């Protein structure tokens, strides 16, 4: 029985993230449009876009290399695997031990690595801009992320997300360091997903764009892969925040179908809330200059470090 | 040994020290050479006296060498050199005569202290005194080499120093090889005077002023 259920649930999880990601994207766009008093595209628009792109033929620049063609799939795959490791509606799925939080961050790092390389492959100056800036942001976001991991791991005594979530569920307690970590994580999430104020997903204003600049040369199915990867990444971060800081309703391993049902519903609820908050934040701020971003992320890093140090100090009392 | 023997030896040794002071005092080249001749003369007397009181025949040889070579031949030779090479007749000093004298007195005091402290009762008083005087003569000679500029006066200083050594050697009762050593030294001196000056230096320079000699000093800057 177990041998069937556990892998099944894992599969459900994997395909759930894949299925839900565009939805979350469409939902945020819709809410944002409403917030700006626009009608906005339908919620299911992202699915349509992806289908359309997938069907189209791919146009490659003359000097595109094999790396340029394989990169989108690699990026998508790594992001997907990373997302599959984050507990969404249940903890302790059969493969949750394959990688811990640090591994997830590193997987996203691999995706970014390929993306940045792909941006440089054609040899256009925009690609270069995009890659260079992306790596700059990453070089600050990743340490911040690691610091968050430290904080969480030191509180929960584990870097394994399932155990973290389980721990958080049982002994809740408002800790200063956790608050700091949460704030830092939000900042990192915004930067990593190229949202306002760091980057504007909806613009093609050359000098301000980062993510868009790297994928400028892509078209057709390749572009679709990248878009999907971006959506999955957004979902990943929201569910990450959810599973660490609001872990309630996650179904423990080996529990009954009802638990899973509640888990799923609660999870979708968290997604909606998260997307709504994100939009709220985006609409209330303006895009900042590129060289303000390091300060933005530096703040995140400082928060994370502060959280860790506080924890170390408080531990010893 | 009898008292007066000791007194004479003592007086001669003291006379040698005195002569060294006179050397330091000179500022004319020829006067310096004359005083050096005196210096050598006193030495030969003292050596001869030592030979007599130790009745060690072989010691007459160094006395003779001192008399002939140092008291007569070398001063004359040097005089010839000075005239021939037209070295100016005054002695350039680094430190004035007065301070030099004071330094000399200090040196004599030092050598007294060192020697009388070093030689316990184990050694007979004559050799003790002799050693002390000899050391002061040596030091005075070295001082002379240090504070005088001309090559001639340096050589004179060197020979004065060497006289002190001979004094010490002869004063050390029954020391073997004294003759050989004094001969070796005479060779050394002769080498200096004849070899270096007339034979070599003369070929190249007009003056034997040390300044001119070591104008190069290894790597010229």
């Amino acid at each position: 029985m177990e041998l069937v259920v556990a892998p099944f649930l894992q599969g459900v999880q994997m395909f759930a993230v894949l299925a839900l990601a565009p939805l979350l994207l469409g939902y945020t766009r819709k809410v944002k449009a409403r917030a700006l008093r626009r009608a906005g595209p339908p919620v299911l628009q992202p699915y349509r876009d992806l289908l359309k792109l997938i069907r189209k033929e791919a146009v490659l620049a003359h000097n595109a290399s094999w790396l340029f063609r394989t990169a989108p799939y690699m990026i998508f795959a790594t992001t997907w695997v990373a997302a599959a490791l984050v507990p969404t509606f249940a903890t302790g799925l059969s493969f949750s031990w394959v990688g811990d939080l640090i591994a997830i961050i590193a997987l996203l790092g691999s995706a970014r690595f390929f993306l940045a390389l792909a941006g440089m492959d054609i040899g256009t100056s925009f690609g270069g801009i995009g890659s260079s800036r992306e790596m700059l942001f990453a070089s600050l976001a990743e340490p911040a992320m690691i610091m968050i991991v430290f904080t969480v791991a030191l509180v929960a005594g584990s870097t394994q997300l399932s155990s973290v979530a389980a721990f958080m569920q049982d002994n809740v307690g408002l800790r200063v360091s956790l608050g700091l970590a949460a704030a830092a994580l939000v900042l990192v999430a915004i930067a990593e997903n190229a949202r306002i104020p760091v980057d504007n997903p909806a613009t093609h204003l050359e000098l301000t764009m980062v993510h868009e600049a790297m994928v400028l040369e892509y078209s057709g199915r390749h572009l679709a892969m990248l878009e999907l990867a971006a959506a999955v990444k957004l979902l990943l971060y929201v569910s990450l925040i959810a599973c660490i800081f609001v872990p309630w309703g996650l179904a423990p391993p080996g529990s009954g179908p009802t638990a899973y049902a509640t888990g799923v519903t609660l999870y979708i609820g968290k997604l909606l809330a998260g997307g709504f908050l994100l939009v709220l934040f985006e609409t209330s701020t303006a895009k900042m200059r590129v060289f303000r971003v390091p300060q933005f992320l530096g703040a995140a890093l400082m928060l994370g470090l502060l959280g860790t140090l506080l924890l170390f100090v408080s531990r010893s009392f | 040994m009898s008292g007066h023997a000791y007194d004479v030896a003592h007086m001669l040794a003291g006379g040698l020290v005195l002569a060294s002071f006179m050397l330091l005092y000179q500022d004319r080249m020829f006067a310096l050479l004359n005083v050096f001749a005196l210096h050598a003369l006193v030495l030969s007397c003292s050596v001869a006296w030592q030979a007599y009181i130790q009745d060690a025949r072989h010691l007459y040889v160094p006395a003779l060498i001192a008399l002939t070579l140092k008291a007569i031949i070398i001063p004359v030779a040097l005089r010839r050199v000075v005239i021939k090479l037209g070295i100016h007749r005054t002695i350039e000093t680094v430190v004035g005569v007065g301070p030099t004298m004071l330094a000399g007195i200090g040196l004599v005091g030092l050598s007294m202290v060192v020697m009388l402290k070093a030689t316990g009762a184990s050694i007979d008083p004559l050799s003790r005194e002799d050693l002390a005087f000899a050391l002061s003569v040596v030091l005075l000679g070295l001082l002379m080499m240090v504070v005088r500029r001309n090559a001639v006066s340096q050589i004179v200083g060197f020979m004065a120093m060497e006289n002190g050594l001979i004094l010490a050697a002869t004063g050390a009762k029954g020391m073997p090889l004294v003759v050989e050593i004094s001969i070796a030294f005479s060779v050394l001196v002769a080498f200096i005077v004849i070899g270096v000056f007339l034979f070599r230096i003369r070929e190249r320079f007009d003056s034997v002023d040390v300044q001119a000699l070591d104008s190069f000093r290894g790597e010229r800057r």
Partner: protein
Amino acid sequence: MQVGIALWGAAVLLGTAVVAALLQRSRLATALTYGVSLVACLGILGAACHYLTLNAAPPQTLRLPFGLPWTGTHLRLDALSAFFLLVVNLGGAGASLFAIGHGRHETAPGRVLPFYPLFVASMNLVVLADDGFSFLLAWEFMSVSSWALVLTHHHDPNNRRAAYIYILMASFGTLALLLAFGLLAGGTGGYAFADIRAGGGTLPAVVLILALIGAGSKAGLVPLHVWLPLAHPAAPSHVSALMSGVMTKVAIYGFIRIAFDLNGPPAWWWSVLLIVLAGMTCVLGVLSALMQHDLKRLLAYHTVENIGIIFLGLGLALAFSSHGLPAPAALALTAALFHVLNHCLFKTLLFLGSGAVLAATGERDMEHLGGLIHRMPLTAFAFLTGCMAISALPPLNGFVSEWLTFQAILLSPELPSWALKLIVPAVGAMLALSAALAAACFVKAFGVTFLGRPRTVAAEQANETDPMSLAAMLALALFCLLAGVLPGLCIDLLAPVVLGLTGARMPPQSTLAWLSVVPVAESRSSYNGLLVFLFIAASTLITIEVIHRFASRAVRRGPAWDCGFPLASPSAQYTADSFAQPIRRVFGSVVFLARERVDMPLPGDRRPARLSVTLRDPLWEAVYAPLAAGIALAAERLNHLQFLTIRQYLSLVFIVLIGLLLVVSIWS
């Protein structure tokens, strides 16, 4: 008897050197020298592996009548030295195989062939040595032979300067180690490590600091790293690979041997010293690397960074064991040693790759390269693997060791001492920062060198390198992947080493399901390289398959889009410097006092606008320059003594004499 095999291997290498010196000019020499070196390395490699795999084998010792007369030459093969033998000869074999093909590009073979085997042999002997004298002999001989190799292309004054600074720093380190052994052995002269272990030296703290100076100056620990980025690139590429990938590891071995094996029990503050230095080394190394546009120098600076990571692991191990926590110490040490292996693999690979590029284009400057992925696809693939590995990206090996290091850092709350509690997480942040910056740096390295469009004719007409070189690079790339996918096996291979040094070991890994890695407990953290790799590969292939099957697979080639701008000349691409510019703005202005000066002509003025950047090295200006100036000044002052007159020299003698007489006269 594996130690015998290792010894014979070294002997063969020494013999090869002589032969090579005799027939240096002939074409045969290259193939012969490197071929024999390859065989010897493989032989020693096999012996070391065999020794490691038959676990808990007793140490094998050997005594030869050479070296210090009454001590003789002691050789010893225990788990530690076996592991480092493995590292040394893995790198050595790779470099030799590469050189069989690459060697024919060498313009001055006569200056490489005799010294190359000597270099490899000396590194093996350092690891085998079991008494102070043979150890230092081999250690310094390693420096001398590599010094000669750095001088291969001696016409370039920069290379000569590099070689000079190198030999100077190396000797400095050796003298430090010499003093350390003086303390360990005591006045009696018991230099054999056995005696030292039995006797236990005096002043362990001083010994550790001296060992840190000695090994650090060889490994490139900040602030003793200045020679490294100069010397490593100057040598022929396969030698650079050995110097960076292997020689620095030998230095690490020296430190471990002294600090963990010979020296007395550690005090906690040693680890503080180590950890702080390690953190500085990481960040400074990677930042300096980012500022470079010379490919080989960039790689050399990354060696500095990785040495920092390794020393961080060692520092943590010392910290834990000084507080009597063997299990975490074992974890930290395992992380460090595993990173030693990994860095050897991918740094060798990367330097070989740069050598291939150099041979194909004659360029080390990235600004003159680009687009090589089209001309040299296989080299590009191997190099890319290396870049991913060194950037600590899963599923490759670099990630695993850094992951283990992080796990060790996360155990630091168990440490009672305050300083460590505060320092360790801060250094952890530095480690994370350097990892992220490393990724940025290698995006730059690979992107500018291999991607985009060729910037020069040389890059345009490059050709793929010879099969031998390719074989070497691809083999190393494969090892990188294997070590990343099967970390459990490597960790178990390291178990006897760690057990010997810390008295504990990590739980056995290879027995776990799916070969996953569990440092402490599964509830705490676990990682499974194999599954990650399989998942990524599977999902990639499935997606491609699905899309090509059910959607379109049509491709059309066209001009680049570039927002509708016509594609500008290749020189308009992003260069290495422009890629690093944002990071330079953020970090460089503080660390390197970087200054940018823009000279913008007025409207109507035809001359080009200029941007000039000045970077300074505060460390050099603060420490090394004043030192050199001081020595020069002292030399200048003393030099007057060469130009005194005879009379003045005499007065020197006179003064000394009088002084001594005075001393005697007042001596009681």
